Every structure is written in structure tokens, then in C-alpha cells.
């Protein structure tokens, strides 16, 4: 059992509150990804779990053991830093063995563990090299190896792939997913990358300004975002938002007079101001969806098989819609966008989801 439980965690640097009342459970063997805009406190949360950062209040347990006052080494965690943080004056073998030596692990055991990790990560031919003689991807693997050999209860990753180039990032991402399966490890992982978050996570935690906005399965966050922030943060390109007025009979009136008719949630009353959200990938140019909006095409970004049409509505709002194949139209043309009512998100004036 290596569940991580965080209750009412608060942390501030002087007068600046960086983490505000964080509650989070990382299930045994699960892969939790922390996402959020820069400066929202992801690294701080991770470092608090590691014990590198003292917290102001709150409770933290790892594997049922309270760890609030334990130093990092006794928390049975292993951290993989964004900068890798390999010891430059030691070869790969010693980088991995260093922590074990300090824990007075028997020599044979150290050797067995390091060799095992080297085998898993394909580092065997590199064991005698110094970090400066390794490529970025290899350094990354050594950093992961250093974490593996300690057999921690929890792995903590802080943006481990952000220093790698695109191709290597995809490779390593797959490697990490495999590793998670193989080791059945509990992992907390910070990233900026949507794709990493969606593909790796059992559970995504979206943070904003030191708070958890929503935590849930990737698809849950994608299809049922709790609020405007999560709706706008998850998905790429971002969800389209349009202000609308609720009218009698389930009519949604946009500011330019276009109207949509939908089965509105019961909490929606006539006269309310709401925000409508729909994802670019759920809209089609032309086509025969139940909802339709018209506007003028500003530009079409073509990525090959698909692309994104930026369409300006009469109200002045721009809506992005995915286009497949060759739409045979272009800038300045008028366009009709259709989409399915199932994919419409409605948020109230406070930005909370209405269901």
C-alpha cells in the first residue's frame, strides 16, 4: 500500500499564499498528473510531498504513515527533477548507487538493484560514463534509474520531459507509461503538456492559483469540466466560449441575435446570463449538426489531414472549428458551423458548470 493522502495543505512564502487548502488522494499504484498554468504551485506541491519544502499547515500521509515532519529520505519517495540533477562528478553507476550506499544497503544488493534498473532502462553500456558524456535522453533515463533503485513508495516527477526534443519526448513518454505498468508504481507527475497529461494519467489534477480546480479521470475532465477554467485549460486548441442569454422555451440567444435551441439543464432559468462552451473538434464546417452558427472565415490553419478554421461571428467573437480534408473554402467566405447538442457545455455567471 502506498497511497498518498493530502488534507488541508496550506503553504505560503511570507505573505504570499502559494498552496491554499489542497486536498488530494493519490491511490496506490495510480498515476496522478498535476497540470496548471505557470506559477500555480505544481512544483511547490510536489516538493511539499517530497519534504523539500516545509508546509504551514495540513496533514500528509504516505502509505498510511504520517510524514509531516519527516525529512525527504525517510518519506520513501524518489524525485526526478526537471534538470535531472545528476551528480556530475560520478559515473552513471555511482549516480544510481549513491543513495543506497548512504542507506547502508549491502553491496551485493546495490549491485543487483542498479543492474536491474540499468537493464530496464537500457543503460547497461553507459554505466561507466559521466553525465556530461550522455545525451539528454540518456541523462533522463539515468535520473529515472536513480529513482527506481531506491524502490520508493511514491515517484515524484517534475516536468521530466520538458528538456527533451519532440521526438524523444514521445518516446520517453511511452517508456514512462510502460514503466508505470511494470513497476505498478504510485506516481505524481507535473507537466505542462496536455498530451502527456491525457495519455499518462489515471487522474488529472488541474490547479490554478494554488487551488485544485478539479481532479478526475482525463476523459471526465474533457467531457465534464467543472468550471470555465478547467474547460479552457484541458483540450487543445482551447474550448470556444460564447456569452448567451437564456430565453423562454429553452432558447439560447447569442449577443448577435443568433439563437440556439437546446434541452437546457433545470438550473437554467429564463433571463440568466450563461457562457456556452464547445470544443473545436466537435464542430464541423458545413455539415448537418443540430446547432448552427454562421460567420465569416478569418483564416484556416491547415495541418495536413485536418486544420482549424477561425470563424468570426457577427458579434465579433471568434470561434475555432476543426476541419477535415479540404474544405474548399477560405478567408473571407461565409461559413456555417454545426455541432452536436451533446457536446455543448453551459456555465453560469460564476463560471460553474450547469448540468
Amino acid at each position, binding site marked *: 500500500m502506498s497511497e498518498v493522502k493530502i488534507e488541508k495543505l496550506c503553504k505560503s512564502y511570507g505573505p504570499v499564499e502559494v498552496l491554499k487548502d489542497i486536498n488530494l488522494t493519490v491511490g496506490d499504484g495510480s498515476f496522478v498528473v498535476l497540470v496548471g498554468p505557470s506559477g500555480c504551485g505544481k512544483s511547490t506541491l510536489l*516538493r511539499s510531498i*517530497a519534504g*523539500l519544502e516545509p508546509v504551514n499547515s495540513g496533514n500528509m500521509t504516505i502509505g498510511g504513515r504520517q510524514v509531516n515532519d519527516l*525529512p*525527504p*529520505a*525517510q518519506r520513501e*519517495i*524518489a*524525485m526526478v*527533477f*526537471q*534538470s*535531472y*540533477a*545528476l*551528480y*556530475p*562528478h560520478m559515473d552513471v553507476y555511482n549516480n544510481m548507487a*549513491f*543513495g543506497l550506499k*548512504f*542507506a547502508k544497503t549491502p553491496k551485493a544488493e546495490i549491485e543487483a538493484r542498479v543492474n536491474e534498473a540499468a537493464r530496464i532502462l537500457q543503460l547497461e553500456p553507459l554505466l561507466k560514463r*559521466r*553525465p*556530461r*558524456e*550522455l545525451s*539528454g535522453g540518456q*541523462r533522463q533515463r539515468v535520473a529515472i534509474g*536513480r529513482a527506481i533503485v*531506491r524502490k520508493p513508495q511514491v515517484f515524484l516527477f517534475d516536468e521530466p520531459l520538458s*528538456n527533451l526534443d519532440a521526438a524523444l519526448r514521445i518516446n520517453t513518454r511511452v517508456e514512462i507509461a510502460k514503466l508505470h505498468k511494470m513497476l505498478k508504481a504510485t506516481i505524481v507527475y507535473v507537466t505542462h503538456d496536455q498530451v502527456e497529461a491525457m495519455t499518462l494519467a489515471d487522474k488529472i489534477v488541474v490547479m490554478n492559483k494554488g487551488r485544485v480546480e478539479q481532479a478526475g479521470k482525463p476523459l471526465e475532465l474533457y467531457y465534464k469540466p467543472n468550471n470555465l477554467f478547467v474547460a479552457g485549460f484541458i483540450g487543445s486548441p482551447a474550448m470556444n466560449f460564447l456569452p448567451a442569454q437564456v430565453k423562454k422555451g429553452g432558447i439560447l440567444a447569442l449577443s448577435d441575435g443568433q439563437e440556439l435551441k437546446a434541452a437546457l439543464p433545470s438550473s437554467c432559468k429564463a433571463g440568466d446570463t450563461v457562457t456556452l462552451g464547445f470544443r473545436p473538434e466537435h464542430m464541423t464546417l458545413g455539415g448537418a449538426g443540430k446547432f448552427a452558427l454562421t460567420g465569416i472565415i478569418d483564416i484556416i490553419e491547415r495541418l495536413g489531414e485536418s486544420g482549424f478554421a477561425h470563424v468570426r461571428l457577427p458579434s465579433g467573437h471568434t470561434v475555432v472549428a476543426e476541419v477535415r480534408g479540404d474544405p474548399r473554402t477560405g478567408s473571407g467566405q461565409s461559413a456555417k458551423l454545426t455541432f452536436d447538442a451533446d457536446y455543448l457545455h453551459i456555465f453560469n455567471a460564476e463560471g460553474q458548470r450547469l448540468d
Partner: protein
Amino acid sequence: MRKSASAIAVHGILILYTALALFPILLVIMNSFKARKAIFGSPLALPTPTTFSLIGYDRVFGDSSIVSYYLNSITVTGGTIFFTLLFGAMAAWALTEYKFRWNTLLALFLAVGIMVPIRLGSVSIIQLIVELNLINTLTALILVYTAQNLPLSIFILSEFIAQIPKDLREAGRCDGLSEYSIFFYIVLPLIRPAMATVAVFTMIPVWNDLWFPLLLAPTGGKQTITLGIQQFLGQYITDWNAVLSALSTAIIPVLILYVIFSRQLIRGLTSGAVK
């Protein structure tokens, strides 16, 4: 064309300067191998089979006290380097890594130490050393020299320690190292080039110093070599053979130390730690 002309000019100047700097040393070494008459007869000539003589070296090494003066100098210089580096690195680490109340004030205090020459305090230092009963001991010299060199070495080492990525120290903490182990196993190896630099500029003035040996350990067989050589310089007669030989041999230990330290002056030791 222009470029090579200026390169020649630069090299010309450098060669000239090198020759100028090396000339007296060469002269000392050359003449130390000559007989007394030849030293004065033709000071600029190389030793020839007829003028060659080892009499100076004979006299220097025949005098057992000179050998012990060498050992004194080596002990004092070595001890000073050791303590300056150890305490300097420790203080630098504490000042950069830990935020405590008097941090800034302490750093300022040390900065003042760089600017005020320690010789201004000679009188009180003598009083202190006498009080401590350390007069005519090597300990006195090591203590004073360490104090003299600490401020600047702390200043320089702090700069280097601040450049060690924070992640590395935290990786150490995650690996279960105590703060002392982090210092000895991670920080010290990484600032080796800086320590070599500090060692080199600590060593030479200490080795050559005449002031404090004269004040603090002038007798009792605790003289350093620079002071010890003075016995060959009499008021009426000076044993030039011995003086030149002693000076020549006095260069060797610093030269060896320099070679040892300069090999550590490899740049980019931290490369590869982080992206």
C-alpha cells in the same frame, strides 16, 4: 594581415614581459651554481666547467637547521591552505545555502575583512599570541594566515557554490544525505577548481611572507625558510653562494604545489549535471 600583425605585437609584449619576470629568477638559479668569484666576476654568464660549483648547496644542506626551516615553511603553508579551504568552503556554504538572521551582516563583516590589511593589527596580534602562549610556534603563523586569507576565499567560494544548481543539493537530500554529507560529497567535489584557485593565491604570499614570521616566530627553530635565509646575510659578510642556493631551492616546493593545484583548474566540471 592586420590580424597577424596585432597577434605578433601582443605576443611580442607577452614574451618581453615573461623574459623580464623570469630574468631575476634565472639569474638567481644560474649564479647559485657558480663559485663566489664567478658570481661577482661575471654575474650574467652561465656556469662553465671552470666556474661551476655546488658549494652553496653544500652549505645550505649541510646546515641541519635550514632543512627544518623548509619543513616549517611547508607545514605553515600546507596548514594554512588546508584550514583556509576547509573553513572557507564551510562558511561559504553556510552563507549561501542557509538563510539565517545575521546572514547578510556576517557577509558584510567578511567583506570588510577583505579590504582591511591584517598587518594593521600586528600589535594586537602579537599581544594575542603572547597571551595564548603561542609565540615561536607554527600554530601562531597558521592561525594568523588562515584569518588573513579567509575573507577573500569565502567571497570567491560563495560565488562558486551559488552556481551549483539547487536541484543537485535537493537530489542529495532525497538520497538521504545529511547536510554534512551534502557538503563533503557533493559541494566540495564540485568547487574543486575554485578551491585550487584559492589555494594558489593563498599559498604564494604565505610562502614568501617575512613579516609575521619575524614578529611571531623569529627564534626557537621555528623560522620559516624566508626568515631562515637571513642568517646567511650578515652585516659585514654575506654568504652569497648559500643565499642564492637557498633561494633557488625555496622555489621548488611552491612550484610543486602549484603544479598539483593547477591540474585541478579544469573548467566545466559541473557540465552534465543539468541540461
